[in-house]
C-alpha cells in the first residue's frame, strides 16, 4: 500500500499548462479555445481584459498585455469581472409588483404595455414635468444615447439625468467654463512624463490602481504630492502629503496662486497669450496670503511656500483630482482653482503636464458627451435653436421633438418627486436607493412616486426592491458597444456570454420600448450599437469631441482604443497617446482659457457640540465598486474587504469615547444612524471620521448639499457623532 499519494484526481485539478494565445501557463481545465478582448466595465481607467472562452463560455480573465492603458495589469475588479455575470440573483424576467406588493414574473410584451400605459397616462394627465429618467455611466455610449434620444425625442420627456451627476458633474462644469468644453486634456503617458505630480483628493492606489502603476513607471523620479485630509495608501506612497483640513482645498489652491503671483512665478507669456481673467485672478488671490491659508488649511506656511516653489521649479507639472474635489459644496471653483495653477505656470498641452480630472465610472465620459441628458448630443445646448436644428438634421427628425429647455439635475428630480410634481421615474443601471446622498430623504421621495421602473442586471438592488416594474438587463460581457475612459479613449466591449433567461441588452430594451411606445420609426437607423456609434460620430463632427474619423468598431479594435478627437481626414492610424491644447488654443470662441475664481463658502453642515466630528466618505478598497451591486457577487472580492461597515477614528477621539478597534459602535447624524465597527488609526486626524461609501447605511448619515454650479452632491462633509451602541442597537 502506498503511504503517500503524490498524484491523483485532486492533484491534477490544479495542474497548469501553456494556455496558448500568448497567455503563459493557465489551469489545464480552464485552457481557452478562444480569447476575446474587451475594456473593463467598472472604473474609468479603461483597462482591456482578455476573456478566455472554452466550450462556448467564458472561463477566465487575464489583463490584455498589449493594450496601451493597462499593459498586462488589472485591479481585482477586472480579474473578477466575470463573477457578476454568473450571480444566482440575476434578473431573468421582467417583474411586476402585484397588489400584495410582491414582484411577479411577467413577459416582455406585458412589461412593455405596462411601461407605456403608465408613463403615457402620467404624461397626459400631469404634463412633461411629471416623468423623468435616471441614466448611468455604466452602460455603453450607444445605449445611453439611445435612451436619451428615446426618452426625450420619442417619449416627450424633458427631464433625465445620470449618476454621473454624483461623480463628474463638477469636472464637466469646471472644464466647460475654463476651457470652453468638457475636455480632460491628458493622456496616461503624462503620468510617466511629469517631474511633479500633484494629486488632490485622489486615492489613486485604491481607486485607480492601474493609473498608480503608470506613476510608478515614471523614470523622472517625480515628486508626488498628495493633498488629502487622510493619510491614504496614496499619501503613504507619495513623496509629500498635505493633510489639509476637510474642505480647505479651495483656499489652499488660492494660497498657492497667491504665492505664484507674489513671487513672480507666473508664466506671463503663456497667460497673456492663451488665457483671460488674469487681472481678476491676481486681485482675488491677493486676499489669500500664506498666514490665512495656513490657518484655514492647517498646513504650515513653510510647507505652502515649499509646494509653491516645487510647482514653480518643475519642468513638467501635472495636477490631478478626483472625488475629493468633485464631491464638494464648492467643487467647481476648486477644480477651476487647480486648472488656474496649471494655466498660470503654463503646465498644459506639453507632455507630463495638465489640469487633469480622473474620471470615476467606466463610461462617465460617454455620458457627458452623448447621453443627451444635461447636454444635447455632442456637448450641445438644448436651449440653442441652432444646436437643436443641427441634431434634428443629422438624425432626420423634426426639431420640434427636441426639448427646448435643459433637464432638471438629479437633485431637482428627487426634489420634484418629494413635492409630488414628479410621479414617474425610470432608473437605468444605477442604485439610487443606496448611492444618493441623504437616504431618508431619497426614500421618502421615491415612496411618493406613482410609478418606478428599474432596469438592471439584478432585481435585488436596493432600488429594484422599491420598483413597480423591473426590466432585466444584460450586463457588461453580454453585449456590444463602446466606453470612453478618463483619457478620452474610446474602447470596445463585446458579448462573451449569454444573458440569463429573458434578460436582454439595454439597447434592445430601449428598441422594444420604442416600438411599444409607437415611436419606433424615429429609430429605424438605430439598428445596432455600431450603427449608433456611426450616428454619434456624425453628431460629433465639428465639435471638440469630433470622432468623425473613426470608421467603426474594427478601427477601434485595431488601434487599441482611440482617443477623441479624431476628425475625419486625419491619420488612419492615430498616435497611441494624444493630449489636448498643445497649440495653446482652447475651445472658447476666442481660443483663450478662462481663469475663473470665486469666494470660498462655508460647508453646509458645520460640526457642533452635539455632532462634533466631520464625516468623510469615500472608496475604501479596490475590491468594492460603488454600491457593491456587482462586486459583492464575487466571493474573492468579498474576501478582500470587511463585510461589515466600519468607521475609522483617530486614537484621541476613540479613547475619549472608550472605544477600541473592533468595538461595534453607532455613527449618528441629524438624519440617521448606522452601526459600524471601530478601526482606530492615526491615519485620520482628530475631529474626523471616515466611513466607506460601499455600505448601504452610509448615506443615511450624509447631508444633502450641492455645488451650486454643478449640482454635484457634497458627500465628503457632514457632522456626526460616534458613541458606543447601546445593547439594543447592537
Amino acid at each position, binding site marked *: 500500500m502506498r*503511504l503517500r*499519494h*503524490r498524484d491523483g484526481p*485532486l492533484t491534477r485539478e*490544479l495542474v*497548469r499548462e501553456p494556455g496558448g*494565445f*500568448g497567455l*503563459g*501557463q493557465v489551469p489545464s*481545465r480552464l485552457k481557452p479555445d478562444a*480569447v*476575446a478582448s474587451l475594456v473593463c466595465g467598472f472604473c474609468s481607467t479603461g483597462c482591456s481584459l482578455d476573456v478566455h472562452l472554452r466550450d*462556448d463560455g467564458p472561463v*477566465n480573465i487575464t489583463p*490584455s*498585455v498589449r493594450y496601451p492603458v493597462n*499593459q*498586462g*495589469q*488589472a*485591479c*481585482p475588479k477586472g*480579474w*473578477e469581472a466575470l463573477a457578476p455575470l454568473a450571480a444566482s440573483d440575476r434578473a431573468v424576467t421582467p417583474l411586476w409588483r402585484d397588489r400584495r406588493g410582491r414582484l411577479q414574473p411577467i*413577459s416582455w*410584451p406585458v412589461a*412593455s404595455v405596462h411601461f407605456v400605459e403608465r408613463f403615457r397616462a402620467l404624461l397626459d394627465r400631469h404634463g412633461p414635468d411629471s416623468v423623468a429618467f435616471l441614466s448611468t455611466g455604466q452602460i455603453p455610449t450607444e445605449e445611453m444615447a439611445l435612451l436619451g434620444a428615446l426618452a426625450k425625442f420619442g417619449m416627450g420627456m424633458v427631464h433625465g439625468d445620470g449618476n454621473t451627476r454624483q461623480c463628474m458633474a463638477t469636472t464637466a462644469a469646471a472644464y466647460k467654463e475654463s476651457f470652453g468644453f468638457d475636455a480632460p486634456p491628458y493622456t496616461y503617458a503624462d503620468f510617466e512624463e511629469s517631474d511633479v505630480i500633484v494629486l488632490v483628493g485622489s486615492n489613486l492606489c*485604491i481607486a485607480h490602481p492601474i493609473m*498608480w*502603476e503608470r506613476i*510608478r513607471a515614471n523614470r523622472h523620479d517625480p515628486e508626488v504630492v498628495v493633498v488629502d485630509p487622510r493619510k491614504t495608501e496614496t499619501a503613504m506612497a507619495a513623496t509629500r502629503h498635505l493633510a489639509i483640513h476637510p474642505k480647505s482645498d479651495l483656499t489652499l489652491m488660492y494660497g498657492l496662486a497667491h504665492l505664484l503671483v507674489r513671487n513672480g512665478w507666473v508664466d506671463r507669456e503663456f497667460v497673456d497669450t492663451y488665457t483671460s481673467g488674469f487681472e481678476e485672478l491676481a486681485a482675488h488671490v491677493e486676499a489669500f496670503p500664506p498666514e490665512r491659508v495656513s490657518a484655514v488649511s492647517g498646513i504650515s506656511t513653510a510647507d505652502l511656500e515649499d509646494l509653491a516653489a516645487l510647482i514653480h521649479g518643475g519642468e513638467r507639472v501635472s495636477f490631478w483630482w478626483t472625488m475629493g474635489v468633485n464631491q464638494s459644496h464648492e467643487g467647481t471653483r476648486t477644480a477651476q482653482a487647480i486648472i488656474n495653477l496649471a494655466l498660470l505656470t503654463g503646465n498644459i498641452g506639453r507632455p507630463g503636464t495638465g489640469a487633469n480630472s480622473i474620471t470615476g465610472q467606466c463610461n462617465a465620459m460617454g455620458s457627458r458627451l452623448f447621453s443627451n441628458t444635461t447636454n444635447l448630443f455632442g456637448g450641445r445646448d438644448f436651449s440653442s435653436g441652432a444646436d437643436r436644428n443641427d441634431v434634428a438634421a443629422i438624425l432626420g427628425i423634426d426639431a420640434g421633438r427636441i426639448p427646448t429647455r435643459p433637464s432638471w439635475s438629479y437633485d431637482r428630480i428627487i426634489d420634484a418627486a418629494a413635492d409630488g410634481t414628479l410621479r414617474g421615474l425610470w432608473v437605468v443601471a444605477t442604485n439610487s436607493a443606496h448611492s444618493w446622498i441623504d437616504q431618508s430623504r431619497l426614500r421618502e421621495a421615491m415612496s411618493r412616486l406613482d410609478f418606478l421602473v428599474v432596469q438592471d442586471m439584478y432585481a435585488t438592488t436596493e432600488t429594484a426592491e422599491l420598483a413597480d416594474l423591473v426590466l432585466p438587463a444584460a450586463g457588461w460581457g453580454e*453585449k456590444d458597444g463602446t466606453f470612453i475612459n478618463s483619457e478620452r479613449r474610446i474602447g470596445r466591449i*463585446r*458579448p462573451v456570454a*449569454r444573458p440569463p433567461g429573458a434578460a*436582454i*441588452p439595454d439597447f434592445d430594451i430601449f*428598441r422594444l420600448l420604442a*416600438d411599444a411606445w409607437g415611436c419606433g420609426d424615429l429609430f429605424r437607423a438605430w439598428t*445596432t*450599437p455600431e450603427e449608433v456609434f456611426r450616428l454619434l460620430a456624425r453628431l460629433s463632427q465639428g465639435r471638440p469631441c469630433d470622432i468623425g474619423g473613426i470608421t467603426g468598431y474594427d478601427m477601434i479594435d485595431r488601434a487599441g482604443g482611440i482617443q477623441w478627437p479624431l476628425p475625419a481626414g486625419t491619420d488612419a492610424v492615430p498616435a497611441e497617446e494624444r493630449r489636448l491644447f498643445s497649440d495653446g488654443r482652447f475651445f472658447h470662441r476666442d481660443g483663450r482659457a478662462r481663469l475663473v475664481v470665486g469666494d470660498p463658502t462655508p460647508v453646509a453642515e458645520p460640526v457642533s457640540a452635539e455632532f462634533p466630528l466631520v464625516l468623510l466618505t469615500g472608496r475604501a478598497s*479596490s475590491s468594492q465598486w460603488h454600491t457593491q451591486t456587482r462586486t459583492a457577487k464575487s*466571493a*474573492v472580492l*468579498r*474576501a*478582500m474587504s470587511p463585510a461589515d461597515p466600519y468607521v475609522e477614528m*483617530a*486614537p484621541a477621539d476613540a479613547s475619549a469615547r472608550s472605544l477600541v*478597534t*473592533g*468595538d461595534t459602535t453607532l455613527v449618528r447624524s441629524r438624519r440617521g444612524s448606522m452601526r459600524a465597527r*471601530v*478601526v*482606530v*488609526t492615526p*491615519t485620520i*486626524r482628530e475631529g474626523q471620521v471616515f466611513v466607506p461609501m460601499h455600505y448601504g447605511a452610509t448615506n443615511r448619515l450624509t447631508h444633502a448639499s450641492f455645488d451650486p454650479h454643478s449640482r454635484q452632491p457634497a458627500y465628503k462633509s457632514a457632522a456626526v457623532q460616534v458613541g458606543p451602541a447601546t445593547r439594543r442597537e*447592537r
Partner: protein
Amino acid sequence: MSLLSAVPAIGETEEVVVTPSAGGALTAVEQFAEYHDHVLAPGGRRYRDLIPTERPGPGHQYAFEVDLDACTGCKACVAACHSLNGLEDGETWRSVSLLHRGTAAEPVLQTVTASCHHCLDPACLRGCPVDAYEKDPLTGIVRHLDDQCIGCRYCTLSCPYEVPAYEPRRGIVRKCDMCHGRLEAGEAPACVQGCPNEAISIAVVDVAASRAAAESGMSVPGAAPSFITGPTTVYVGSRREALTRGAPSPEPTGPAHDHPPLAVMLVLTQLAVGAFVIGLIRAVIGGGSGPAPAVDAGLAVASGALALAASVFHLGRPRYAHRAVIGLRHSWLSREIVAFGGFTGLAVLYAAVVASRLRLPAGWTETLGWLAASSGATAVACSVMIYATTRRASWRVGTVASRFGLSGVVCGSAALAWAAVVTTGPGSARPLLVLVAAAAALKLAGEATVFLPGRPADHADRVRRARLLKQDLRPRVVTRFGLGALSGVVLPLAAVWLSAGAHPAALPAALLASGALGGCVAAEYAERSLFFTTASAPR
C-alpha cells in the same frame, strides 16, 4: 463558436419582435482580437527581472520577496493568484493585511501582501497526521499533497500565518505552491505577474541567513513571531522599522470557525477519560466489587465511541481516516489518535473483564485499568499539545491543560454521579456530586478571568477576546456561564441536599443528576466552541 451563434433572436417567441442589436456581436468570433502563440507571456519582458535566473543551490531555497514601499494595497495579487491557478469560487491563497501604526504626527499605513512563507521548519508539515506536506529538498517550496490530505484541518490551526485553507467542496486543504511549474518553465508565479507595482518577486535565499533573520524576531510585519517556523519571505522597504514600533492595536477580526464536531469530540473524549479514571479510583477504593465499575467503564466506552463518531464528521475525507496514524513520529494529532485508540481498546477490555467477572490473576484487572487510564490521560495530554503547540495566545499549555483536565473531571464525575443515582440511589453519588460542583466552580472562575482588567501579558489578544465574548459571542457566553453554573454547581448541590438523610428523595435526585449531566456536557460544549471562536493566530 456556437455560443455566439446560439444566441436566440430576442423576443422571437413573443408578440413584440425585436431584431437583435447584438447583430455585430453574433459574429464576434471574427472580431476576436488576433492572438498568436509567439506573443510574450503576460508581462514577459518585465517579469524576467522578477524571478531568479538560476535554481537554488545547496543551502539555498526559493522565497518570496516583497517590497513594502511598492505594495499599495490594490490586492491584484490575490485575484491574479485565484484566476491564474483556477482556484475554487472564493478560495484565495494570498491575502493582503492592513497595518495601522505610528502616531498622529507620523501615521503609518502599511499593506502587507502575504502567502505561504515556505518556512524552514513548517508547522503545517510538523503537525500533519497524514504527511500531506513535503518540503522540496531542492527548491524549499512547501508543497501540499492534495490527494494525501484527509481534510482534518489541523494545519489551518498549526500554521501561525493561517495560510492553509480548507476547501469544503473537495474536503481538503489547499495552499500556495509558489507556482513551481511556472518557475520551472521560467515564468513568474501568478502573484508576481499580477502585481502592477512589481512589489512581489522571487528570490533565492541562503537558508542559514534566513534562519538567522527568523530567529531575530519579526520577519513578517504584523504577523506571528518568525522564530516559530522560520518563514522565508523577505520583506524589504523603508518603513520596515516603523512597523515594529508601538504596540499593535487589537485586531478587528470577528469570531473564528467554531469546529462543532471537534468541540463535541474533545468534550466527549475528556468525559470518557474522566469517567474512566474516576470510576477506576472508585473501584480501587471500593475493592472492585459490585456493578459500579462495569457501569462506570461502560459509560466511558460509550462516550469514547460517540467521540470517535464525532471526530469522523470533522474530516473532509473520512474514508481515508486510517491514514491519520502516519504522522506518529511528529504529529500530536497522530499521537492523540493512537493514544485514544489504545485507551478505547483497553477500556473496552477492562469493561468486559469487570462486567464478566472473569477471574484473572491477582492485580491483573487493576493493572489493565491503570493501563487504560494512563493511555486515556496520554490521549488528553496529546489533545492539549495539539493546541498548545500552535502558540496561540489563548491556547497556552497551562490554560488548555486545565480546561481539558477540568472538563474531564466535571463531565466524567457528572456522568458517574448520574449513573450512581440511577443504579444505586442518590446516597452513593454524593461525593461525585460534590466533585462536580467543586470542579465546575473552579473551571468557571478560571474562564472568567479573561474579563478581569489590566493583566499585561497577552494584553492585546485578551482585549480582543474579551470584546468578542462581550459583543459578537454574547449569547454563547451567556449559555456557557449560565448553564455551566446551573448544571455544574446548583443542580449537583441541590441533588446532594436532596440525598441527605435516611430517606433521600430518589426521583428528584435522579432528575437533578440527569439535568446536571446534560447541562454540564452542553455547557462544556459551549466552552469549547468559544475556545475555537476566540482563538487567533499568534502575533
